């Protein structure tokens, strides 16, 4: 024998007798034309010599151009429970089985299709014929007659795409299968909707390759009772409104980006994971996360319409923005993250509905909603525990009827100019029903807009405002000369303790717990252990400047008050009426001004 070879991987081990032929591995036999083979007669798609990712030598006489190879291993090779060799593998395209092979000793299967048999860019289906194991793969045929190798099948898995394969979709999966009916095919497609599992086998994992773009052009779900995870390792384009529903207790995983001007609803009892940016190139029209699992979000999410988060959410550790240009953002499940990163909820033309807790004791929450009444509505379940809270735009309205959920901000709390913040345990802000405030955050909200500055307030309980020492520049004086406090504030000190430990660092004019009060009524207000560090004019412990017909009665201050000119322990500049008041505040002095 001369120039004879055998594939020792596929053929199996010689158990008797001898051969003078040369044993080579599959990869070796696919690496180059074997010694002695004539290149005028033989052709080959050379592999790398290590993996079987080329072709066996083929005869040029039957292949005027390079053939297309489809190859790989069957599930669990080389230790399949069903045995590796002799398993039937079908190759289907456009609803027809176009080729059948059986596996070699090591589970290797190998289709060699003459050029043109399988058109470029057409989706084809490779599936295992076996009563026990089910394995499917759908791939888009490469352009220019390219091969698909290393297409290893996995048990109970619909594998979509391989390295460098093209775009697939529900519809293309349907095209590959066509009207074929087999219990070995683990999915069906109707009207663009992909259903995973079949009558005899409902356990299917769906997984795309990381380099495969998938166009979701319809719903994806399971047959009744179906079990499995849906994993998109590659980028997603939405080309229709879609709902993706994992199997029972299964998960939905999107490892890459999602784009497209359509709505997406995800439902997975085992949780939805969004690792990539959603809507970064083309915003989705809407996004809904549900299913009752714990969802994981690691990238920005942009939609033109509503975003609804019904599940518990664990946020990633980098800054993340949920942005809706025209819709609402609704949180319905507990949301938390452990890092110091910021979550920005931005519904610049819509509302933010907070129906669940937000917990990030090192993190920052930034809220932006439309500038309209009650555009941000935390409900009774919306316990907030954060390091930092920034209300950038919108009107936070949180008025309880006897109780309020936690609102704990350990470091910085700020209300950006123009935003409104109302947090009261009861009341309507009216004379008959004043807002009843329970914490320094609600008190700080008084100063947020001209509306709140005109309302009626009373304290519901003693407030320790020591946290204001952590705020940048401390507590912001309520009311200014341009937007003065014109409302009514009753400290209720006859029934409760006062507000203690307020810290204010402010170099401006009209600085005090109230900066500027005009035609206002302030009574029963005890401010103890104040620390006001001002350097401007009209600095007072309780009020910087009292103007108009303001009355200030039964109030007192203690602590320290510092300013430059027109400084008083109780009031800086008074043009109103003060009675039954006192101050024991010390350190009322001109702030040292460095001139060097």
């Amino acid at each position: 024998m001369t120039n004879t070879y055998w594939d020792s991987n596929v053929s199996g081990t010689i158990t008797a007798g001898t051969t003078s032929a040369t044993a080579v591995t599959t990869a070796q036999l696919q690496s180059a034309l074997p010694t002695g083979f004539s290149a005028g007669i033989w052709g080959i798609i050379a592999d790398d010599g290590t993996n079987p990712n080329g072709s066996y030598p083929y005869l040029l006489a039957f292949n005027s151009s390079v053939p297309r190879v489809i190859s790989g291993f069957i599930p669990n090779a080389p230790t399949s429970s069903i045995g590796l060799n002799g398993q039937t593998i079908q190759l289907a395209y456009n609803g027809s089985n176009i080729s059948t092979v059986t596996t070699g000793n090591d589970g290797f299967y190998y289709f060699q299709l003459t050029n043109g048999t399988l058109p470029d860019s057409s989706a084809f289906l490779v599936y295992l014929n076996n009563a026990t194991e089910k394995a499917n793969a759908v791939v888009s045929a490469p352009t220019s007659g390219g091969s698909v190798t290393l297409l290893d099948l996995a048990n109970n898995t619909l594998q979509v795409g391989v390295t460098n394969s093209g775009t697939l979709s529900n519809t293309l999966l349907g095209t590959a299968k066509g009207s074929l009916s087999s219990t070995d095919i683990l999915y069906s497609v109707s009207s663009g909707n992909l259903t995973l599992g079949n009558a005899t086998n409902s356990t299917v994992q769906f997984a795309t390759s990381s380099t495969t773009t998938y166009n979701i052009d319809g719903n994806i779900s399971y047959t009744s009772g179906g079990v499995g995870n849906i994993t998109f390792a590659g980028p997603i384009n939405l080309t229709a409104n879609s709902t993706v529903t994992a199997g029972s207790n299964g998960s939905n995983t999107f490892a890459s980006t999602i784009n497209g001007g359509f709505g997406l609803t995800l439902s997975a009892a085992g949780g939805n994971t969004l690792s990539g940016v959603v809507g970064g190139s083309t915003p989705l029209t809407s996004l809904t996360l549900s299913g009752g699992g714990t969802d994981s979000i690691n990238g920005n999410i942009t939609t033109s319409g509503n975003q609804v988060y019904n599940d518990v959410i664990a946020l990633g550790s980098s800054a993340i923005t949920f942005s809706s240009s025209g819709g609402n953002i609704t949180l319905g499940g507990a949301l938390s993250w452990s890092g110091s990163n910021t979550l920005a909820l931005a519904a610049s033309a819509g509302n933010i509905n907070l129906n669940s807790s937000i917990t990030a004791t090192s993190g920052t929450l930034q809220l932006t909603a439309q500038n309209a009444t009650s555009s941000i509505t935390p409900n009774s379940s919306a316990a907030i525990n954060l390091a930092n809270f920034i209300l950038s735009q919108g009107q936070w309205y949180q008025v309880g009827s006897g109780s309020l959920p936690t609102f704990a901000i350990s470091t910085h709390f700020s209300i950006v100019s123009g935003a409104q913040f109302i947090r009261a345990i009861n009341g309507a802000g009216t004379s008959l029903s004043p807002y009843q405030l329970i914490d320094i955050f609600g008190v700080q909200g008084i100063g947020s807009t001209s509306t709140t500055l005109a309302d009626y307030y009373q304290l519901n309980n003693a407030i320790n405002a020591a946290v204001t020492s952590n705020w940048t520049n401390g507590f912001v004086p309520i009311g200014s000369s341009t937007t003065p406090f014109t409302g009514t504030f009753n400290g209720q000190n006859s029934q409760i303790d006062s507000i203690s430990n307020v810290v204010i660092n402010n170099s401006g004019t009209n600085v005090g717990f109230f900066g500027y009060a005009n035609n206002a009524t302030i009574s029963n207000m005890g401010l103890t252990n104040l620390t006001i560090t001002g350097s401007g004019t009209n600095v007072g412990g309780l009020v910087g400047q009292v103007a108009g017909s303001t009355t200030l009665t039964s109030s007192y201050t203690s602590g320290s008050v510092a300013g430059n000119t027109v400084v008083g322990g109780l009031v800086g500049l008074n043009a109103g009426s003060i009675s039954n008041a006192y101050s024991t505040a010390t350190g009322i002095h001109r702030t040292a001004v460095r001139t060097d």
Partner: protein
Amino acid sequence: MGGLVGSNAGSITTSYSTGVVTGSTTLKGLVAVNTGTVTNSYWDTTTSGQSTSAAGTGLTDTQMMNGSNFSFTFYSSSGNWIMAGYPHLTMENTTSITNAVQLQLIAVNLTGSYTLANNIGATATSSWNNGTGFSPIGDFVGNFNGQNFTITNLYINQSSTNDVGLFGMVAGATIQNVGLVNPQITGNIAVGSLIGSINGYTSLVTTINNVYTLGGTVTGSSSVGGLLGANNFPITTLSNFALTNAYNSASVVGNSGSGTNIGGIIGTNSGTGGGSISQAFNSGSVTAPTGASNIGGIVGGGRNTLTNVYNIGTITGGSKVGGIMGSSTNLTLTDAYNAGFIQGSSNVVRSLVVERLRL
């Protein structure tokens, strides 16, 4: 800049300031610049360091602690102000007491339930009210729970006032879990560091439990006790107070030669039934001059049910001087002893208690 207001163009009435005013611009006590009206308002010339103000009345720090210097409406059944050192607003009353001012402000709500939130330092009370100190609280009908905290250096110096103590008079109150450290209490009749007298003209029962003194002096003419001055109970035979778990180590001093009823725990425990005392002892000295009568280690005089009590303090008086009681009728005494030195100015040192238990 001013202690209360920097610049006033409006009105200021019934107000004051005490703040330290320092700096480099116009410094005034109450108001720095005034073009408005200021009436009945004051500043502390001592603490502020300012002898002048654009308006208002300057008072020394001593004067600032004397209510008679203010044209304020002070609290009786109403009124905005109450003296507690400086004038304070009655609205400052709080049920969780952290300092001596808040202790004094119990006076504006006598039905409340109060607790001490920490040990109270009351040294400053010696300069209150022109040197007469803390004003006894009463009739207190609420609850007071010291939560095992103490009140140190409580000072009352009102030798012509009756019913003197932290609580001047109580009725149906509950007072418990508090220690008075070094109280300095002086009154006339019915003087005790904790309670001057228990109002006997009601059917309410006062409960006192787990109270004590550590050192100090309680001084009065009659019905003087280390903890309680007098239980005045003329109405029924029922006991109208129960005192349990108490001890006194303050010196109890009767300062009248005609005084009666000076005791280590309580001076007078009168009425047909008296009050019951159980688990109590006295280790302070009880001293009354020649002529004073009814001097005892636990009770000066009265009708009593005493159980598990003892005295180890020195008891000195005129007549009817006893280790447990000076004079008693209807005494029920169970499980008691005296180990203190007993001396009288005459030879009438004859209390039953003395006869039975003097060791």
